[in-house]
Structure formats: structure tokens, C-alpha cells
């Protein structure tokens, strides 16, 4: 379906490639580390808290979430899924988790990294770091890994206040405090496990770099509000993991994001768009169909520019941490900001789903989207739960229509580009209709 050979309608950013390369490097480094007998962690994305601590303690980290996506893209997933199925894990559960469980099972049988594992595979972990963020799978999956791995597991907690509750007096304080104490307990656990002490000065430095990395990355995305939008979602997806997975020294990553900022800024100043003719500006909800990204070129040929994505993959709203000195508090504030950064505005308009649901309303307004592309994932509840609400709210409050095309995270065949294009053509008529409706309502775009 993809037409990669043909000249692409989407012009990619040059500064994206080195950022994308960081992820590939992550796996090599982990394998090297484990060969040298250095500690390796399998991590859930933990929104920097655990990452900075691991990095300070010289623990190499890989992220099974990302690795399962890799397995899917390389076609290695079906074998791992079959293994997890035959080991009795219900098939309706997270495809990433089932893929990873199958991988771990095979690694246990072989006593080494399965030979056919893509990207050199994930080495046997010294520890597992999970998080209670967003979905139950994050900790149940790693707990279930105990069947195949003897590595100890630590679960990092993350507070999930409701919008109203988050505004109550003292709530922010005890949530931040909770995060800080959680990080302290994790450090104690690590020090015991690795038999070495935490280097607090180094931690402070890495924390500051991480904060800066997120700030610059946020600046890059701010530039995408320009018409035409200079940076397509494909470039976002290629460069987002570098910060989300903390694939390298945050100093290096920050520098690369800064270069990206300069390139995008130049395009904005010269009114250069990511696609030849921007007829429609769209937001994309949740994970893309990794395997058929070429499909976005076909949409680009029709004048579809994807200008913003899910809140969940974006850096936190900027927050002033100059008054916070303790590194653990600084990181706790950043992580908490990532989760609750939109709550204040959500509270104002009485939008009770302050993350996932509400940010889309702000994004669609600020990035002036004509529509949103919703991609429900069959085995990922977290990426799917909120989409109906988003669809409903966008229509009721902003008269912005949604295009729904089902897919999955590992069962790649589920996403049908032909079907998507068929819907897309019709959707253009719908987007034009609502442009006039929004005008009548006096909305800006």
C-alpha cells in the first residue's frame, strides 16, 4: 500500500534523522552494557522520574513498549504473540505486553537473546522498572514477566487526581510529596540492589538537562501552529521517542532538538510548509499505524497536513521551577506538570477529563485543526478509552469533526489504508461543511 518509491509529498526535516537514530543506539548500548556485565533495566515509560535516576546510577535502559512496536514493524511480533497466547495470556490484552511476554518466554527457553530478535534484541534485565501511570497493564505486564525473568520489579507510583480534586487546597503539595517519596524509595531500592550510592550532584545535573530538553522540545512544537505547518506528525513521531524514552544523555538530545528548532523556525519565517499545499490541518489521536506511514503521503497529496498529535506524547506545558531546588522535587514537579498541566484550563470550562480528553480541545483550537483523525487501537484500552468522548466534545464545543479508523498496535493488518482513504475522501466534504458552520458561530478558523 505504501508508495515509498514515488517522490514523497511530505518533506521531512533534516534534523529529525539524528534524533531517530538515538533510539536505535539505545538497544545497541544496552546489549553492550550487558555484555560488559553492567546493569540493564527494562522500563515502562515513566515520564523521567525513574529515567534520570537510572541514568545517574549508570543503569542502561530499554523500553519494551518501544521494542514491541519495533517487533511489530519488523514482522517478528506474530511468533512472540503466539507464544504468549499458548502460555495462556488472554488475547484481548495489550499487544505490546503479549509480544514482550512471548519474547521473554523464548529468551528463557534459549537462555539468551532470541537470534531472530530485531535490532539486536533486549538483553536480560537486572531489574524491571514499571509505573502505575495511566494503565493497569504497565505494572501487571511486568509482574507477569516474573514467570520468565528472575529480575526484581519496582513499580513507581504516579498520582492521577481528578480535575476538581486537583484544585483542592493542599492536593498539589501531597501529590508532589508522594512523587518525591516514591523516588526516594526507588533510590533506596536501587542502592541496595546495585550496592552503590547515588551521586546527588550528578543527579542534579541530569535533572536540569532533562527539564531543559523538554522545554526546547516544547518550543519546537509551538512553532507548528504556523500556517502552513512546517513540521508533519511523521517528523514528530520520529523525534518524540528521544525525549519520551530518554534514549541518550539529555544534553545531546537537547542539542538535537535545538537544531530542529532552528530548522523549523527558518521554515516558519519563510512560510515553508511540510506539504506542498496545505488544504486541511489535522490532529492525530494516539499511536499511528507504524507499518503504513506511507499512507500519510497519500493524504498529503490530497492536501492533508497533520499538525498536532496526542497530548500524551507531547512534552509538559512549560512550568517555572526556578524556586524549586531539590532535584527530586524538580523532577516530581515536571512529571506532575506533564500529567496535570492542562487541569487549570479544564477546570475553568468544567471539563472533567483534564488529561487525554481536554488537551485535544485546546490543541485543536490553538493549532486551528479542520478535523481530527482518531485511531482506536483494538488491544490498547488507554489509547482508546477517551476517543469517543473527544469526538463528542470536539463536535459539541468546537464543531470540529472526527474521522475514525480502527487499528492495533501489533496486529498491523487491522489498519486498512484503502478503507481509511475511502473515508478520508468523504471526510473532506465534512471538513469543508464545518468550516462554514464554525464561521457562522464566529470561531476563528
Amino acid at each position, binding site marked *: 500500500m505504501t508508495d515509498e518509491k514515488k517522490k514523497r509529498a511530505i518533506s521531512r526535516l533534516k534534523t529529525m534523522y539524528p534524533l531517530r537514530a538515538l533510539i536505535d543506539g539505545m538497544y545497541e548500548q544496552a546489549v553492550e552494557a550487558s555484555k560488559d556485565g553492567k546493569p540493564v533495566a527494562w522500563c515502562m515509560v515513566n515520564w523521567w522520574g525513574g529515567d534520570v535516576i537510572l541514568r545517574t546510577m549508570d543503569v542502561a535502559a530499554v523500553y519494551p513498549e518501544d521494542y514491541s512496536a519495533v517487533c511489530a514493524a519488523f514482522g517478528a511480533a506474530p511468533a512472540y504473540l503466539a507464544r504468549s497466547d499458548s502460555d495462556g495470556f488472554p488475547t484481548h490484552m495489550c499487544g505490546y505486553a503479549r509480544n514482550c511476554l512471548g519474547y521473554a518466554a523464548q529468551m528463557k527457553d534459549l537462555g539468551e537473546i532470541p537470534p531472530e530478535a530485531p535490532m539486536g534484541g533486549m538483553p536480560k534485565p537486572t531489574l524491571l522498572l514499571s509505573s502505575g501511570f495511566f494503565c493497569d497493564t504497565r505494572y*501487571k505486564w511486568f509482574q507477569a514477566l516474573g514467570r520468565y525473568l528472575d529480575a526484581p520489579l519496582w513499580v513507581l507510583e504516579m498520582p492521577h487526581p481528578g480535575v476538581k480534586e486537583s484544585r483542592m487546597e493542599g492536593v498539589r503539595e501531597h501529590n508532589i510529596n508522594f512523587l518525591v517519596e516514591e523516588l526516594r524509595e526507588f533510590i533506596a531500592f536501587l542502592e541496595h540492589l546495585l550496592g552503590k550510592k547515588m551521586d546527588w550532584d550528578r543527579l542534579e545535573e541530569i535533572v536540569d538537562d532533562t527539564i531543559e530538553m523538554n522545554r526546547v522540545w516544547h518550543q519546537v512544537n509551538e512553532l507548528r501552529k504556523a500556517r502552513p505547518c512546517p513540521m508533519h506528525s511523521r517528523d514528530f513521531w520520529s523525534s518524540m521517542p528521544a525525549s519520551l524514552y530518554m534514549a541518550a544523555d539529555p544534553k545531546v538530545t537537547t542539542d538535537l532538538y535545538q537544531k530542529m528548532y532552528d530548522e523549523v523556525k527558518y521554515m516558519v519565517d519563510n512560510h515553508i510548509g511540510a506539504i506542498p499545499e496545505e488544504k486541511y490541518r489535522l490532529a492525530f489521536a494516539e499511536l499511528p499505524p507504524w507499518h503504513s506511514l506511507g499512507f500519510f503521503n497519500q493524504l498529503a497529496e490530497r492536501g492533508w497536513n497533520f499538525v498536532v498529535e496526542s497530548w500524551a506524547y507531547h512534552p509538559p506545558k512549560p512550568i517555572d521551577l526556578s524556586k524549586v531546588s531539590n532535584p527530586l522535587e524538580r523532577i516530581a514537579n515536571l512529571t506532575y506538570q506533564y500529567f496535570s498541566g492542562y487541569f487549570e484550563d479544564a477546570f475553568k470550562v468544567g471539563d472533567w477529563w483534564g488529561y487525554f480528553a481536554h488537551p485535544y480541545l485546546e490543541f485543536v483550537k490553538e493549532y486551528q485543526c479542520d478535523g481530527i483523525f482518531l485511531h482506536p487501537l483494538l488491544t490498547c484500552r488507554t489509547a482508546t478509552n477517551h476517543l469517543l468522548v473527544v469526538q463528542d466534545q470536539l463536535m459539541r464545543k468546537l464543531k470540529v469533526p472526527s474521522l475514525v479508523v480502527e487499528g492495533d498496535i501489533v496486529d498491523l493488518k487491522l489498519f486498512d489504508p484503502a478503507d481509511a482513504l475511502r473515508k478520508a475522501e468523504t471526510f473532506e466534504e465534512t471538513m469543508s461543511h464545518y468550516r462554514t458552520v464554525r464561521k457562522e458561530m464566529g470561531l476563528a478558523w
Partner: protein
Amino acid sequence: MTEAGSQGLSRVKEIYQDRSHRVKALKAEGKQVIGYYDIYPVLEMLTALDLVPYRLLGDMSEPITKADTCLPTVVCPFIRSVMDLGLKGKYDFLDGVVMAHACEVAEKTAHIWRIYLTPAYAHFIDTPHTTHAAAQKQHKELLKDFKKTLESFTGKELSAERLEQAIRVHNQQRTLVRELYELRKPDPPLVSGVETLQVMVALTSLPVEEGNELLRQVISEVKQRKDGPSLRPARLLIWGSVIDNIALIDMIENIGANVVMDDTSVGSRAYFSQVELTEDPLDGLAYRYLVELKAPRTFRETVLSETGKKDYMTDLENRFGYLGDYAKEWNVNGIILQAMRYCDIHGYEVPGLKDYLGNIGLPNIYLEHDYSEAALAPLRTRVQAFLEVIG
């Protein structure tokens, strides 16, 4: 405290047939009714303020239509059913709702419920996932927040005395439920699995004092009656996702087994741990509702052996040991593991739990269903074959 004079099990059946009947009557008398989801909202705090706790349950026989507009089909059909009933106005009589972070979808649904059903009072308790010291401290803070919103909603002060009183009554209920479950130990059991579930559902539909009264009636009735369950070859324990409808257990018992024990949330899970009366009552409550409640949604630390490595079997023992004890105490010869489709927290447990049960030599079978009476039909053959295997 009963209407139409009906007592004990017959009253239980009445309530099971028409759950909301009693609380609606209480509402007419000016009481306020608060709906709650699953077993993590701290009910003592409602009772202490003279609010009637009423558990949000689903309806297996009602097709889900309205919920499709706000909850996708890939989430737990039980919570979809609850949301569906809400959207259809079946819970309009509630004065408010309290939901906790029982599982991911419950947490999301707390927000969705607020958006679409705009209850006068709504509170969300972000129950932590671990039992770390930090998590226990956080849980107490969360209960303080809950206290604040309750006080401003009722305009009453939630004093330590009131709370202690409420804890006593709820502990009483827990003791009485234990007593009832004791009556399932003889062979044949004095009370059937279907009857027990009906009692459990009734308890979620009444003020705690009335529930206690009802339990006393049921216990004495069951002790005296002659026409209890008959002797059957299989004594089963049923584990897993919430069961709030007798259909499944009725099917199992009709095939030729006695369901004598359960580990589900409208059952032993909700009652088998007491609340310790602590100087600050919130301490005891925070501890019980986070640490003492045993459900897969709570992550429990694995014990590290000297090697710093984790031992799988020890881990299983820590997580599932209590089921082994149940099996011994209730003299169980088979376990039915059941989970709803898309129920992650139970789904992930299955292979490990099967490993554990295999180790202690307890026959078991895993059943998956989609919370609809019709979907139970295909399970019939599995259950019967399972009984043929163990019988």
C-alpha cells in the same frame, strides 16, 4: 426494619429482584443516597455522615446501547453496562457518586460519569497501586480530601466519634458475613452459592445497619432450615472479575456442583478484612482499604532472596497463598477462574495463578465471558466437562 414483613432469604430475594426499592423509600424519607463503584471507596465515611452507600452494579440482561457513545467496545463490559444504566437514567435517584482508582477503566469512567451525568456530588479517590510506605501516607491524604468534599456537601462535620461508630457497624457486617461464609463449610453447605450471592448483592443495596439485621435473619434461618443445598460431588471456589448476577453460579450449581467459596468483589473480597480502630480513625481506614483489601489491582512487592533475585514461586505464594488457605478451609476440590473480556487486571493473573494452583494440585479451569447471559451458554459445556474431569 423490613417492609411487608418479609424476612431473611425471602427478603433477600425481594431486594435482589428490585435493588433500588429500599433506598428510594429512604430517599422519600429525606435520606441522601451516594452511589459508589467497586470496593475501594471508603464506605464508613459515608455511613458516618448518614449518607446511604449504594453500589453501582450492571445488568447482564440489558443490551448495552447508550454507553457506546462514550465508552468503546474494547473495555470491560461490566463497567460499560454500569455506564449504560446511568445514561438510561436508572441511577437518577442518586444524590452523588464516589469512584476510586479501582482499575484503569474505573478511573476513566469517573471522569466520563461527571461529564455526561453531571451528579450534584462527585468525588474521585485516586487509590494508589502499591503498598509502599509513601503510598500508604498518600492514601491517608486522599481520604482527608474525600472528608473535605463530603463535609462541604452535607454541611456536617465528620468527627472522629462518628467515624469510629461507623467503623464498628461496618466491622460488624464483616463479622456477620464471615459467619454466613462459615455456613458454607459443611458438606453439603447450609447455604448455596446463588443464595450467598443474592445476600451479597442485597448488602450493597441497603444502609449498613439494615444489612446487619438482614444478615442476622438469614444466618438463623439457614441454621434452622431443613431444605438446604443437596450433597454434590464437586465443591467449588470461584475467583475473578465481579459477579453481580446469579446466572453464572446458578448454571454451575445446576450442572451438579456446590459453589462453597468465592474470591470476587461482590463477595468475600469486600468483607474478609476488618478495619482496625486507630487513634486517628483515618489511619485504620487508609491501611485497610489499601493494604488489607486483596485484589489483583494492587501490586504487592516480591520478596527479594539474599541473591537480590526474585523467586517466582515465592512471589506466587505471596500473591495467591490466601486462595490455597480458602481451598483448605472450605474443603474445595476445584476452582473456577473467570474473568470478563477486556478485564486486564484479572487477565494478567491467569497464567501465574494457574501455575500456583497446579503446584498445590488444585484442579482449575479458566472461563472468559462478556457479561451477557447469552454468552454464558457456551460456558455450560466447559463447566460440565470440568466436573466430569474432577468428579
